[in-house]
């Protein structure tokens, strides 16, 4: 494409009063030979916009630099269709935070403009990645309640579904379920599994595989190739996206010997209780006599650091349900519930009240000891927190342990992903698939693969149904985004993708190891094999690559490197240090904008470069910057660690690791390691931001000016 550059400088909102606009224009016309360079006192007004439109339509301008406010505002006004455009922020970042008419203010504005124009120089319009033979089919792994709901959800939106269940029948745990507890939580409801299954079977868009397993999932969104084994034979099908709805397993009660399990026949789990209720009578396993005295022990293994540290959420409701079974069998039966906290959130509190009304006795406390007499009656000693006494529950027919839920994702073989980074979804410390929790709980670390139901977190059936429906939406969304070559969350709509110049690859494996989404496989010679539909366009691979062979059309190592080179570095005698701040566009950039909106002064010696994620920061930029006389580099990114806030999961963490290695480079240049710093910042830290910046600048000023200035 032949670029014709148009530079449009707004002088409104205080910009004109703050800056020497003619000098700015000179940067465009002299340094960058911009054929068109215009100013307007109200660029976002109709007249200003029409002026630009006329140039695009009549004058052939196809590369636009809008030198005005932050790109976070007036995005809808400055929209000129399929042209290359860049926004240079001289309002929030310059005119609103630096003294008007000052030399340093002017220098910052000019450098911002230089960087923007270099960026345009180094960009080409994106051409979306089009994979071939795309499939719009959704694969649902797991035919339990969540899986069935997900399948029906996608099917009714018009998408073909493959539903794979490892057992002979659909329904999962519901096959064992006696009754359901669900809104409006006034009474127990039938499970109605047959109806559910019929609904799935009646759906023409759903193809069901029972007694089947996933042998392998290769490829990526739109082009997943799934090998399904069933009755000894295998078939391979192409699908667009995947839902893992493989559910949960009860916590292994054999580990709960201290609660009498495995030792006394009349100590059973809530799962056994459910099956017993479904099969008819609730009896003592020891002698088959009807159970008249029943104790439920809550948090059996849950909320216990020796077993499951988390709360399994549903066990309170399950025990309330099962207490109702006992009372329905015999209203005179005694039901005790030994609990730590009764957790019946939202409207399900109603069911707690119902069981109280039916005469359930709730004891807040913990079990001290359990014993059995010659007739296999159980006796439990507990500390009752509300009586503040040790109590004894005698002649119990049955003790039901409310055991918690363990996600099946702990076992990685459900999906058998043919991914370099492993066959399962990356999980958190409890084995639940990790996600961009809190705001984007569906976003797993594997593009196009979503989780639904209790594999994701313990949840009651009504919520499970909604959850599965939501997961179904995400799968069809991924399919549609992939079809147009667009990225999925969080860079939705981004049409760029990483291109690998393979001839220069040294097989160092950094990109394949560091991709947070497992998008890059490897061949046997360790060459990267990118699966571009898995890519989220964060640029982590680009940051990792020491050979600089990975580039996006509008984001590359060369581009940022050239932008840095474009910054004017004053001589050491001028006592005007230059520090580059590489800032995450998701949080640090808006925080900087907020400082602008609040007119909080920013040090004028910084030059801010917004990056897709700190994970995309390539060490070469820092080396180049320092080699050119830049006095320091600060990286501002999101929180890392267990409670990471990075939307690309590992970006800020990787940046930290990489910067630990920068001292080597600095050593080679004989520069102090303090010249590079990484700071965590959140979007709300706009008042802390200037403090961080000033602090770093003070440190830089303590050092001698970078001796490489002028080279």
């Amino acid at each position, binding site marked *: 494409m032949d670029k014709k550059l148009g530079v449009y400088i707004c002088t409104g909102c205080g910009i004109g009063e703050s800056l020497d606009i003619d000098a700015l224009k000179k940067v465009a016309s002299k340094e960058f030979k911009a054929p068109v360079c215009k100013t307007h006192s109200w660029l976002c007004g109709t007249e200003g916009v029409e002026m630009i439109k006329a140039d695009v339509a009549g004058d052939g301008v196809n590369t636009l630099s809008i030198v005005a406010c932050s790109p976070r505002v007036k995005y809808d006004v400055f929209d000129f269709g399929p042209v290359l455009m860049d926004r240079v922020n001289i309002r929030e970042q310059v005119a609103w935070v630096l003294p008007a008419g000052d030399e340093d203010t002017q220098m910052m504005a000019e450098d911002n403009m230089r960087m923007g124009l270099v960026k345009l120089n180094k960009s080409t319009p994106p051409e979306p990645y089009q994979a071939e033979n795309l499939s719009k089919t959704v694969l649902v792994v797991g035919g339990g309640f969540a899986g069935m709901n997900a399948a029906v959800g996608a099917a009714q939106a018009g998408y073909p579904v493959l539903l794979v269940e490892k057992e002979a029948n659909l329904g999962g745990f519901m096959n064992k379920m006696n009754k359901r507890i669900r809104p409006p939580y006034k009474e127990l409801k039938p499970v109605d599994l047959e109806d559910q299954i019929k609904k799935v079977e009646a759906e023409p868009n759903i193809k069901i595989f029972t007694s089947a397993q996933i042998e392998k999932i290769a490829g990526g969104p739109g082009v997943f190739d799934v090998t399904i084994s069933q009755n000894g034979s295998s078939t391979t099908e192409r699908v667009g996206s995947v839902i893992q709805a493989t559910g949960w397993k009860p916590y292994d009660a054999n580990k709960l010997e201290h609660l009498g399990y495995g030792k006394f026949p009349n100590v059973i789990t809530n799962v056994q209780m459910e099956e017993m209720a479904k099969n008819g009578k609730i009896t003592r396993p020891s002698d088959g006599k009807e159970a008249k005295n029943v104790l439920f022990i809550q948090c059996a293994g849950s909320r216990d650091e020796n077993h499951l540290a988390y709360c399994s959420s549903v066990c309170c409701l399950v025990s309330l349900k099962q207490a109702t079974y006992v009372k329905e069998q015999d209203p005179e039966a005694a039901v005790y519930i030994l609990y730590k906290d009764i957790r019946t959130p939202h409207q399900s509190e109603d069911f707690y009240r119902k069981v109280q009304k039916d005469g359930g006795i709730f004891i807040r406390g913990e079990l001290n000891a359990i014993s059995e007499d010659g007739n296999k009656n159980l006796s439990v000693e507990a500390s009752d927190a509300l009586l503040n006494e040790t109590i004894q529950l*005698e002649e119990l027919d049955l003790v039901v342990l409310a055991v918690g839920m363990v996600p099946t994702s702990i076992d990685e073989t459900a999906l058998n992903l043919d991914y370099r980074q492993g066959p399962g979804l990356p999980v958190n410390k409890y084995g639940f698939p990790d996600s961009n929790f809190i705001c984007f709980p569906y976003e797993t670390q594997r593009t196009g693969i979503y989780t639904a139901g209790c594999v994701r977190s313990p949840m009651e059936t009504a919520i499970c149904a909604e959850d599965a429906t939501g997961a179904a939406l995400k799968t069809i969304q991924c399919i549609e985004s992939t079809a147009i070559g667009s990225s999925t969350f969080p860079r939705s709509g981004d049409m760029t993708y990483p291109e690998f110049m393979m001839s220069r690859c040294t097989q160092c494996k950094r990109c394949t190891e560091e991709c947070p989404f497992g998008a890059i496989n490897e061949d046997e010679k360790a060459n990267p094999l990118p699966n571009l539909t898995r890519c989220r366009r964060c640029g982590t691979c680009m940051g990792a690559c020491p050979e600089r062979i990975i580039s996006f059309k509008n984001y590359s190592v060369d581009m940022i490197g050239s932008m840095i080179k474009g910054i004017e570095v004053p001589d050491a005698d001028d006592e005007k240090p230059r520090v580059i701040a590489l800032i995450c566009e998701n949080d640090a950039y808006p925080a900087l904008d907020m400082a602008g909106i609040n007119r909080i002064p920013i040090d004028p010696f910084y030059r801010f470069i917004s990056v897709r994620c700190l994970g995309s920061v390539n060490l070469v930029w820092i080396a180049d910057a320092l080699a050119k006389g830049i006095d320091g580099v600060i990286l501002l990114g999101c929180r890392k660690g267990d409670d990471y806030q990075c939307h690309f999961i590992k970006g800020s963490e990787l940046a930290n690791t990489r910067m630990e290695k920068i001292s080597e480079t600095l050593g080679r240049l004989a520069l102090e390691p303090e010249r590079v710093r990484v700071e965590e910042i959140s979007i709300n830290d706009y008042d802390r931001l200037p403090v961080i910046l000033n602090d770093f600048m003070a440190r830089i000023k303590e050092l001698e000016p970078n001796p490489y200035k002028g080279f």
Partner: protein
Amino acid sequence: MDQVVGPKYGSRGGAGKAYNQSFAREVYRNVDSGEEIKMCMQCGVCAASCPLKEKMDFSPRKIFTLIRAGQREKVLSSQAIMLCTSCYSCKVRCPRKVPVVDVMHGLAHYALRQGYKPRAETALFGQKFWGNIYRLGRIDEKDVALRYFLGHGLGQGIKLMMENKNMGIGMLWYKRMKILPERPIKNVKSLRKMLDKAKAMGKGGAV
């Protein structure tokens, strides 16, 4: 006897108090509003709402949990159930709408029927209070107080009167008490008939 000991706590040396539901059932069946205590979730709002909280040996909440635990003797011999003055703070605030006042009265009556005795003080006051109502159909504060004080014997009665002198003056000053004796309400005889009937049904009388 085969026993497994929990790892965290361990048995506190021998059996604790045995829980059983027979007393709870007895209360549900025999005590006015007794069944309502099933709904108690042990929040304790009743306890702190009670103006007599400092005088009570157990709070209403604790009474309810003792009932569930089957601690019959402790409940029926407790002074707390005899002390309720029907201020209704607990009942109004109870998040589960347990009619705490009614249950406490119900328990008191049940305890009396079962032969439990209130403290002499409480009984004396109740007796004088009841007498006043029966006679006048209303309360004459100075009359009740006088009779109650003198019920302790003359010397002690005068001492009590002196101790409460300021309260009496205050009540007069704020027109909470009249100097002249109260007159019976209209048709006090009909009221007496009702009270007699209630007593015959086991629902009234001095506690």
